[in-house]
């Protein structure tokens, strides 16, 4: 399956070509070029998935396949960095997810970004992002993954800051880059510690079930925990940075400053699940070597899910609501991984996490693209400027509704099946986690319908010109993703899914009790939301807000986490660390260097006087020197 290399090579070439040509190409030409390349690799990815799932099964287990492998840099016998392509169920699934969503975003952007300045640059960056994300998921070793991980971060930075004349976009891109880069520092340390003790970067070796790599270092501890625990925890921090887990979630809501299709691609469907993918990729290491870290992942996930869901209930910017919803849903995936076991029924959590990753990517991309379509029509992100749009935008209305039902967990849409699996895995792990997650699922349904009613129902806002349905190029991706959202849950439910912790097929058994509870909870939440927001006068909602004034205010301000960060960075780090360092830099290091320069200059000005240009002075010095030397020779 050597042709999988093309899946990586084509977007890279497309990036280089579009980036170099830039405005020499007509906007539409470069858009079409990028979209065609994406279409090609989408077909290739589907073909890869088809071929992989039909041929690579031995003894009921899907084998890890490495069609391409090369040694890139060799330092010592153990320390070498390789590049390659690893195909296993999760990477093949990710190929399909990334290329599908990316293709939809490419098509959608042809119309959404029409006439924007820098249209060609936008498509070049999209290609770069697609390339890096694909490289990340097929990485054969953790170092290759790290390289692409950083590339993904860079392309995210470039795309968030696409409107670089807007100060808020520039600030948001810097924030996203710095926060994720800060987390990546821990990721790098984790990689180094892990590979130092296991002597390998390779995923296949690290995750082999009969691996005895860890036996050698089982005794090594640091501050009461084994070094491997430290390493996996550090790696998780890297993943938490990209996946916006608490307390590193602050960058994601701001990242909504980027163009809406970019939010759909990067900050909903693909890049933000990189952290989940990372934990899933190293799952055997987490599960067998450091189960305590895995439980930590679960609890961080639970807290993040709750935290983000509460905030999402009170935000008024529609993209912010979706951003917090994304954080909450990714936390669901993290929780599912955290509570999962290995193999067979025990591994429900793992399977559910990957399943939810897939379905979430589709319906969240759909929600974002729908939001983009709304923003395109009313030219505002604020829910207050919308309302009553269902008459004007029927396609957006229906697709958005289906996506909301899917994320709320109403059967038969995809979100129901994946969320149900997550909840049953949680209940098996501990009733507390199960109940909490069910409550959060209810909150999800509540805030999604608050959003839906806020946009499409309720009082009509006065518009400068009548909103209109989006053009065909924007509607087609919406319809396609809706179709996927409708069937993506049912089909794995009927057929079984191959994406499991051990690579064996898994047949989903619906846990009737859990399913009933979650559907009931979701329905109640939707009904509450309908009562509160459908009319859109907001009387009861305001009453609730005044009753829980403190909570409402805190949630509106995102629980002041950003302020805490600002306090820590500006007041503590800048004042107590950066300023002394800056002082030291200016007054000691710079001063030393200036001193060298000044002394040299002083000396040169002084010694310059010897060279007067007066021949007779030279002659006198010459004479004097001769006399002195003669005297020395004669006297000694």
């Amino acid at each position, binding site marked *: 399956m050597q042709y999988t290399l093309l899946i990586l090579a084509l977007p890279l070439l497309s990036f280089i070509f579009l980036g170099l040509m830039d405005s020499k190409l007509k906007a539409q030409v470069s858009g079409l070029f990028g979209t065609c390349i994406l279409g090609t690799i989408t077909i290739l990815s589907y073909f890869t998935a088809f071929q992989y799932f039909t041929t690579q099964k031995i003894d009921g287990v899907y084998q890890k396949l490495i069609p391409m492998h090369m040694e890139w840099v060799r330092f010592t016998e153990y320390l070498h960095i390789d590049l390659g392509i690893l195909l296993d169920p999760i990477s093949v699934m990710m190929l399909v997810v990334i290329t599908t969503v990316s293709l939809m975003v490419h098509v959608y952007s042809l119309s959404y970004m029409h006439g924007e300045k820098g249209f060609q640059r936008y498509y070049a960056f999209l290609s770069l992002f697609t390339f890096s994300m694909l490289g990340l998921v097929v990485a054969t070793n953790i170092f290759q993954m790290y390289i692409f991980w950083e590339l993904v971060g860079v392309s995210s930075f470039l795309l968030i800051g696409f409107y670089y004349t807007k100060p808020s976009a520039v600030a948001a891109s810097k924030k996203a880059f710095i926060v994720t880069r800060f987390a990546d520092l821990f990721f790098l340390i984790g990689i180094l510690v892990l590979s130092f003790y296991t002597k390998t970067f390779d995923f296949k070796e690290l995750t082999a079930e009969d691996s005895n790599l860890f036996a050698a270092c089982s005794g090594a501890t640091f501050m009461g925990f084994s070094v491997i625990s430290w390493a996996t925890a550090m790696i998780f921090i890297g993943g938490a940075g990209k996946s916006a887990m608490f307390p590193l979630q602050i960058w994601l809501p701001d990242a909504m400053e980027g163009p809406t299709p970019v939010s759909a691609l990067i900050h909903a469907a693909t890049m933000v699940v990189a952290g989940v993918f990372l934990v899933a990729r190293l799952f055997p290491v987490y599960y067998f070597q450091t189960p305590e870290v895995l439980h930590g992942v679960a609890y961080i996930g639970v807290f993040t899910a709750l935290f983000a869901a509460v905030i999402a209930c009170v935000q008024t910017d529609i993209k912010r609501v979706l951003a917090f919803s994304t954080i909450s849903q990714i936390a669901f995936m993290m929780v599912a991984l955290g509570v999962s076991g290995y193999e067979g029924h025990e591994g429900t959590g793992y399977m559910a996490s990957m399943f939810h990753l897939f379905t979430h990517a589709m319906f969240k991309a759909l929600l974002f693209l729908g939001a983009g379509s709304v923003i395109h029509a009313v030219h505002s992100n604020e829910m207050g400027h919308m309302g009553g749009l269902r008459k004007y935008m029927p396609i957006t209305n229906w697709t958005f509704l289906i996506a909301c039902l899917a994320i709320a967990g109403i059967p038969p849409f995809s979100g129901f099946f994946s969320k149900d699996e997550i909840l049953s895995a949680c209940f098996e792990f501990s009733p507390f986690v199960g109940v909490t997650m069910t409550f959060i699922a209810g909150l999800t349904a509540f805030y999604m319908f608050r959003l839906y009613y806020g946009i499409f129902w309720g009082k009509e806002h006065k518009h400068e010109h009548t909103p209109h349905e989006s053009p065909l190029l924007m509607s087609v991706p919406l319809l396609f993703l809706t179709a996927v959202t409708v069937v993506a849950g049912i089909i794995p439910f009927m057929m079984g899914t191959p994406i499991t912790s051990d690579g064996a097929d898994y047949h989903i058994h619906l846990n009737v009790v859990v399913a009933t509870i979650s559907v009931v909870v979701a329905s109640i939440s939707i009904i509450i939301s309908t009562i509160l927001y459908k009319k859109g006068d907001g009387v009861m909602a305001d009453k609730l807000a005044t009753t829980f004034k403190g909570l409402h205010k805190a949630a509106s301000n995102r629980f002041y986490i950003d302020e805490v960060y600002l306090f820590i960075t500006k007041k503590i780090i800048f004042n107590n660390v950066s300023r002394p360092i800056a002082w030291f830099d200016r007054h000691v290091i710079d001063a030393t260097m200036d001193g060298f320069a000044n002394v040299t200059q002083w000396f040169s000005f002084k010694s310059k006087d010897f060279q*007067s*240009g*007066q*021949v*007779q002075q030279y*002659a006198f010095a010459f*004479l004097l020197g001769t006399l002195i030397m003669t005297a020395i020779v004669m006297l000694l």
Partner: protein
Amino acid sequence: MGELIANFGTGQVPMVAYLGVSLIMFFSGVYGFLTRKSLLMILVAVELMLNAVDINFVVFNRFLFPGQFEGFFFALFTIAIAACETAVAIAIIINIYRNINSVQVGELDEMKE
């Protein structure tokens, strides 16, 4: 000095007398070279030094190696070279005068910086 006095009036000039003259000539030249402001006077001072050296050559040949001619020939060479050198030097001085309208050595410091 005693020899000088002893030979006084015998018609033979001792070597030290020649060397004394050449010494005075040479250091007059050095002094002139260091103190004169005019390039022409400096050139004269250089000639004076060269001639002092010529005298030394001739005197040493005459008193220390009689019957040989190297010293005489060297003196002749030096005279010829000095003539050439003077011609060149004067040409240079004339050019300097054309450029800066002066032959004062103190004003020739344009190459300093």
